[in-house]
């Protein structure tokens, strides 16, 4: 049917496993979070982690970056930040008598955008533009960020005072949203024993090359989606649009995101084709942040839980292909 070369699924699985094990040396007992992060990486998408401070969001991002043999930068967002603080500025060089562009922290492979909702919409949108296009233009000059490019943004869902919540259109740019959650007792004990307070002390050696990651991303796009599974994805998306409790359904970009996420999920398990289970597994992280309730609730955590419950309902209602 297809002339594309066969995907070396076992090799892909081996690579992903190496990466996973390396990260899990540091991030203990968070298999699901690690898996999702990796899936996001394979899918070439951006990740939004919503959770309380101190749960290991930054550590996760750092470990990922260190394991891949690529550059990492961290941006701590504050309300007085300007777009140039992220993108970089052109400054006048006395010697060359010319403006020279000084690259900002965005020019890294893995960018950790901490507390993204603390900054103004202006700054937010500059970041989101880069995320969408993978390039940026300053003073008529276009610069490309180095692939693979992945933004891991975090935000605090509870402390909302003095924040600028991301508008829905911008939420759409993130492939997934996820929570970290508190660690289990024994893992926390582990962390306590060999604990480092700062992630700079973490030892993570690169186990996967940048080239390999880009290869994996290429494979992900070629993972086979059978017709009925594709239909299933579309039916799921359509169901969100018919569900009257949601203000609006997911966009076609959401549908595409679910597909690529499911493909990445399949590949991360060494499979060259998508199963309905992959779609189901990716449904919540991919769709939940793209949906809002018609009657919005005062507590965002509460609202998120309602959305998740509705999604679960929807999942049972839509018949999976057999």
């Amino acid at each position, binding site marked *: 049917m297809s002339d594309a070369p066969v995907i070396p699924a076992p090799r892909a699985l081996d690579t992903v496993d190496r990466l996973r094990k390396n990260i899990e040396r540091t991030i203990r007992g968070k298999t699901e979070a690690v898996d999702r992060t990796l899936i996001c990486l394979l899918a070439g998408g951006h990740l939004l982690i919503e959770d309380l401070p101190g749960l290991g969001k930054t550590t996760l991002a750092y470990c990922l970056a260190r394991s891949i043999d690529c550059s990492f930068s961290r941006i701590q967002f504050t309300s007085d930040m300007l777009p140039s603080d992220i993108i970089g500025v052109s400054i006048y060089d006395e010697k060359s008598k010319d403006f020279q562009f000084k690259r900002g922290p965005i020019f890294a492979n893995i960018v950790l955008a901490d507390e993204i909702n603390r900054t103004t919409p202006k700054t937010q949108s500059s970041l989101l533009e880069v995320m969408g296009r993978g390039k940026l233009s300053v003073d008529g000059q276009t610069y490309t960020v180095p692939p693979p490019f992945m933004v891991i943004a975090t935000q605090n869902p509870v402390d909302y005072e003095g924040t600028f919540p991301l508008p829905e259109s911008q939420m759409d740019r993130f492939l997934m949203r996820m929570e970290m959650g508190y660690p289990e007792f024994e893992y926390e004990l582990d962390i306590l024993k060999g604990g480092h307070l700062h992630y700079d002390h973490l030892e993570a050696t690169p186990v996967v090359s940048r080239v390999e990651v880009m290869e994996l991303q290429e494979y992900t796009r070629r993972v*086979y989606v059978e017709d009925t599974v594709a239909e299933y994805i579309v039916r799921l998306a359509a169901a969100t649009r018919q569900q009257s409790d949601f203000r609006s359904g997911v966009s076609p970009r959401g549908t595409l995101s679910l597909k690529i996420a499911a493909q990445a999920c399949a590949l991360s398990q060494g499979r060259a*084709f998508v199963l309905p289970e992959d779609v189901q597994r990716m449904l919540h992280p991919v769709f939940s942040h793209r949906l809002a309730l018609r009657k919005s609730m005062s507590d965002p955590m509460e609202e998120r839980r309602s959305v998740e419950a509705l999604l679960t309902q929807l999942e049972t209602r839509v018949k999976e292909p057999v």
Partner: protein
Amino acid sequence: MSMGSKQARLSTEELHELKQLMGALLAMLSFWSLLSLDVGSMPILVLGGLTAAVAFCFPRWVAGIPAVVWRWAGPVILLMIVGDFLLHIPEFIPPLVRMVVLLLIYRVLAPRNLREDKQVILLCLFCVVISGVLTVSLLFALQILLFAPLAMALLFVICLVDRGKEAGPHVIDWTSFEWSQFIRRVWQVLDLRIIVLCSAMFALVVAVSSLLFILTPRFDFNRALPFLELSTQARSGFSEEVALGDVSEIQEDNSVALRIDVPDIDVVSAVPYWRMLVLDKYAAGRFRISHSLRAKPFRTFAERRELQLSVVPFSQHQGDLWTFYMEGGISRYLPLPGDFVALRFQKLQEIEWVPDVRVLGLDSVGQNVFSYQVEDLQFNLRIPVGEGEREVLDSLPLEVEEDELLAYPLTTIELDMPAESKAALHEINRGLVGETPLSAVDYSRAVTNYLWQNFAYSLMPDGERRTGQDPVVSWLGSGSQGHCELFAGSFILLAREAGYAARMVVGYAGGSWNTLEDYFVVRNRDAHAWVEIYDAENESWLRVDPTPGHGSSDPEMLVQGSMTFDSGWSAWVDSLRIQWYRRIVNFEQQDQVELAMTLKDVLLDYYAALKQRLSEWGLAIKSWVAAPLDLGRLQPLIVLLALGVAVVAIWRVRYTLLGFIHRLLRRPKALDPVRRQAGRYLSKLKIEGIQSPVVAELQALRFGPELSARAAKSVFSRARKALRG
């Protein structure tokens, strides 16, 4: 079934499962048998049946009941049973049945140890036997036939499980229980020896039951079964001589004397008179059968199975059958209300038949229930005059000398008493009829009216007994109340004095209708004595009942009494007895022989037919083989062979073929057949919960990029293997 040296065995767990399931099966059988008992416990029986069925089909659900329920079930059931018994205090069988049902439900649901398994067998045996004995239905035979092998098998399993050390009920883990797998396991361990042994035991049980079936009608069941024995107490009964007060003595006995299966309730008159004995001779307060009536030529002695009378006009001949069941110890004379076409016994019977007075006696008083059938029975008001009587009776009135050896029918006009008594009778007669002679009917009316006006009915007669005078006449002179013999005796003596022939008849008058099983019941308290007077105008004996409260004062007018109906508990118990009689006592030897002969004939016919069919087939095959080779003859065979080959070939390449058709049709909606088949196997494996490496391959076939049909086939065959386990 495996019969190799390596014998498969059921594990202890599986044996326990088998034991539990067989217990539920036994319980279902008992509830079914109790259903036919009809004691108003239908809802609880149905509930029990459903519970047992659920316990049998879905043992996993029952195992899910928490243990705390069983701790409380015991006291609650005990309370329910006690309450049930207290609420229905006079009855005991329905609460008893409900108790058994409740206990069985509890036993079936709760986990059992070995002792409790035996309890289940016992309870079930109780159910089957009680319903069998009380209803005597033919289903009983089937139920006991089912019960026997089941109980034997369960006992066998209990013996296998028993290791001698048993603390409490073995808790069975039903989570992994699968009916199909379980049956397969049981099939594996079934041994030829076990089957042969079980079949032999079962055959033995059946043989013994068949033997019992043949023996039953020839067996004294009244002695064997206690509930039948209850009523077989010694009674005074009717004998050939009745003193004053003898009949009244019988009336004090309330037990049943006679049960009659009647073709239709409307055929029985409201107050039927069941004649048993005719007493013609009177002397000193005693009525008896005269010597001449006891011997030839009046009485004929014979050994018969059937007695023809055929005095009933042909127009009334309908073939209705009346079946009489007379209790033992009543009398050797059979109750017969009147004429009939034929009378049949169950076997050859020595009888004494007095055709002129229509009295039929056996050679002795039976101790058991005696049954006989009468065809087209009539309730006669008049008995036609017999050939032996006609000559004497036509020449009435006659003067007769008192003589002990006087011949019948002269005994019916004899007046053996002192002259003083005769004078007293004459005095009364003169006041009643005057000088002009009356017809028998008018005379009866006059005497009955006289007796009714002057005397009242009572079981305690009064009046003083004057020495030297006849006891009946002295009652007529001084009494004011008396029993039926006194009324009948007075009537007879008065009639004889006036020149009419009259005789006493004893038997039963009346009875009641059992509404539960629709039959007529005559009790000993219905014993009665009445009169037959010779009516010269009609040349017949006319029945007159001079006792107040029984008949009408006008002998020609039939009483429009109402029949009494029996219902309620005692009637129900009584109806059980007639069911027993109908099926067991009345079952004739001849019928059994006929049944056996029919069975034999049928078997022989089948055998002959089978033999012929086989020989025909043999001949056909032989001629086909012997015929010369002929292509035309082989043609259908070749076509069939070709068809078979084609079907097999198509079957082998079916996926490729279907895929080709699919591509040909290019239906976007339709699923590629390989994918569809893979999907089917996947969902089957998922339902069965089977983990197998073939699942991944099937998933690749179903959702992955297209593969060749050849590769698919091998995956499918592995999937089938995985499904088979």
